[in-house]
């Protein structure tokens, strides 16, 4: 059984190529991932991200409860500013999910997580309620979510917003905002593309109207394939590709934790890796021009010996070459090191680089 977002029919109308992603039928592309990506980087595009999980944690022990499970200290979360990225870790310090946290009050928080982990996260949360007075609510299917991203975002939608978007610093949000005369639950200055933009959370019964008004302005729709291209250019980890239950935040170089926070699930491993070091580490790979795309699972080799593996790869329209994210044994984690990637049985040249390929402009 697959889930559909409230905008499913709108995507069909726009002739999106639809496919299953994490159990949801999503628009993978409309006119092509690369064309959509160029449009986001140069102009403005809109993504349906309603598949992401929206889980509310509510009760008088919300902070105490969350602090058992979240790798950052939730006491530092404030209202009107997204907290994170942080994570739920397992007992081995591996990622259960990487999440953003929204504080609505001392007793009410919302977790936005990856679609693929929605039920796992809810079970993890519920199974770890001991004596805390707290309840877990799944709002995923009640609220939709959009991202409008690109340098022209504020110019295009600013005048249709009831708040001054320029007054928001990165990650700040406001609730109950009018956009195109529609009252939306939340607007944040945030996103996953590296471009200036907003994310909007809106009730299902209003989101179709909101989407249509955004499209009517001339903002082009962008699909999940485009989203993947842009986040790889930014070096962001995708759960399931670049991070999973067997990968720790230190290995992923993903600062989702507070090093000196003393008690939370996964802490032991984080501290142990901090003291003892790690054996594998996340890196970026920049392929020579005129080579194929390095794909998840492609081995990274030095002098014929396997030293690592690609976990995500794409064609970067900004760099006009193929790039990847992967892991390598720490002894070979040297920026500039020439390596080869085995792609479908043939070896192609590339080099190790920082896993951040462009300058963010958010």
């Amino acid at each position, binding site marked *: 059984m697959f889930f559909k977002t409230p905008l499913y029919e709108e995507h069909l109308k726009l002739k999106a190529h639809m496919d299953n992603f994490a159990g949801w039928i999503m628009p993978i592309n409309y*006119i092509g*991932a*690369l064309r959509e990506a160029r449009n986001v980087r140069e102009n403005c595009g809109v993504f349906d991200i309603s598949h992401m999980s929206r889980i509310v944690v509510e009760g008088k022990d919300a902070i105490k409860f969350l602090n058992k499970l979240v790798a950052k200290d939730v006491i530092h979360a404030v209202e009107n500013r997204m907290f994170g990225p942080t994570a739920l870790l397992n007992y081995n310090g591996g990622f259960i999910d990487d999440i953003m946290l929204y504080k609505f009050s001392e007793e009410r928080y919302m977790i936005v997580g990856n679609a693929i982990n929605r039920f796992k996260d809810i079970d993890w949360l519920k199974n770890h309620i001991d004596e805390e007075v707290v309840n877990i609510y799944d709002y995923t299917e009640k609220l939709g979510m959009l991202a409008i991203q690109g340098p022209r975002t504020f110019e295009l939608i600013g005048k249709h917003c009831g708040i001054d978007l320029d007054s928001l610093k990165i990650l700040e949000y406001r609730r109950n905002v009018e956009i195109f005369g529609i009252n939306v639950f939340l607007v944040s200055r945030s996103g996953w593309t590296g471009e200036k933009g907003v994310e909007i959370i809106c009730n299902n019964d209003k989101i179709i109207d909101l989407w249509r008004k955004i499209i009517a302005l001339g903002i082009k729709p962008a699909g999940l*394939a485009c989203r993947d291209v842009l986040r790889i250019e930014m070096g962001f980890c995708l759960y399931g590709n670049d991070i999973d239950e067997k990968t720790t935040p230190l290995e992923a170089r993903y600062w989702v934790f507070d090093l000196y926070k003393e008690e939370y699930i996964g802490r032991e491993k984080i501290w142990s890796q901090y003291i003892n070091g790690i054996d594998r580490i996340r890196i970026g790979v920049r392929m020579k021009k005129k*080579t194929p*795309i390095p794909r998840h699972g492609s081995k990274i080799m030095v002098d014929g010996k396997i030293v690592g593996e690609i976990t995500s790869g*794409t*064609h970067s329209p900004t760099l006009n070459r193929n790039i990847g994210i992967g892991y390598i044994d720490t002894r070979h984690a040297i920026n500039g090191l020439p390596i080869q990637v085995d792609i479908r049985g043939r070896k192609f040249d590339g080099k190790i680089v920082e896993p951040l390929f462009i300058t963010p402009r958010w």
Partner: protein
Amino acid sequence: MEIYDAGDYMNNVINVNDYTVLKDLLYTKQHEWVRVEDDTVTIGISDFAQKKLKEVVYVELPEVGREVGKDESIASVESVKSVEDIYAPVSGKIVEVNETLIDAPEKVNEDPYGEGWMFKIKLSDRNELNDLLKPEEYAEFIKKEG
């Protein structure tokens, strides 16, 4: 390569929804087209195929001189989302490949029946041409697939 003027072009084209099928080519169910010139055939992928793939970023071509068998996977076309294998529609020997696709893989999208051609095979068995789809048959085929 022959250049058609507008009139000739229109007479040469079958339109199936958004896709064009040229009448002077033969086709396969794997969406390759075949242009026959004496005992050599030129092969590429159809408009339907390039539209499904979207932007091609890499083309892997066979080596000139290689002997290939009918239906053997001998090349590939890569877009951001997938890699599609290209199969030899006939047996024979690769006599030429379109090296311009190394620098400009997007030609497969821009001109799938012209500058996007991929490789040429010298036929070893002319009879194999009879197994290929005629343009009308291919048009029917993509009408159902599309």
